[in-house]
């Protein structure tokens, strides 16, 4: 027996969501929800900066000491507070990008994330990042999978037809 995909199994996609930037949350949520709509088995592994968007929007600060708290202070957790990877201009850029998206009927990432969850996309937080940055289970949004490590993510990737690092 091998773990390679068989014809009878659904195709599979794994995304490593490393970036917490607003403009990268769009491809992560659009591709994962659409792949699920295509009948694929989809998993997103949120690691490092990618973990901050999973924190509930009303949690203002995460971390267990001065340094990790300061980090969360400078990099506000929560998907609604995500910044653009360029031209953020102290938040004006992301505000404008959300305006433009709304005008063009493009859903914001937090709504697409919810749709992806509804469609059965597995959302896996990275356990190591949680420990490193002091992000607790109850500080993160509902409906996530159990926190996992690199080996679990790699196992999923090795069984996936498509693996992306965003």
């Amino acid at each position, binding site marked *: 027996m091998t773990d390679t995909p068989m014809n009878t199994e659904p195709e599979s996609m794994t995304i490593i969501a490393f970036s917490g930037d607003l403009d990268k949350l769009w491809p992560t949520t*659009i591709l994962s*929800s*659409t792949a*699920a*709509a*295509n*009948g694929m088995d989809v998993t997103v592994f949120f690691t490092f900066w990618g973990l901050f968007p999973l924190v509930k929007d009303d949690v203002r600060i995460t971390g267990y000491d001065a340094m990790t708290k300061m980090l969360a202070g400078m990099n506000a957790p929560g998907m609604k507070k995500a910044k653009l990877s360029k031209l953020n201009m102290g938040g004006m850029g992301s505000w404008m990008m959300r305006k433009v998206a709304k005008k063009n009927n*493009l*859903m914001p990432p937090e709504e697409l994330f919810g749709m992806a969850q509804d*469609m059965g996309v597995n959302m896996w937080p990275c356990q190591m990042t949680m420990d490193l940055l002091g992000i607790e289970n109850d500080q993160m949004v509902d409906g996530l999978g159990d926190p996992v490590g690199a080996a679990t993510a790699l196992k999923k990737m090795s069984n996936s037809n498509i693996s992306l690092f965003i």
Partner: protein
Amino acid sequence: MENPTTTVDAKGQSCPMPVLMTAKAAKELQPGETMLIEATDNGARSDIPAWVDQTGNELVESSEEGDVMRFLVRKK
């Protein structure tokens, strides 16, 4: 165009919504039943046929009238 079992109104919706709404509606259909998808997003012109291909359903016919694209899809 034959009478569809259900209609998906994705007019005014942007990528990826027409496909997500289509997939959702398909779940409610029995094999052999059809759905009519209406969309105005230019991406839907290729996205709906791509979804049909990927999921093994059948694109019975498609048409365009003004801004509105219509796809009749049969669930397999």
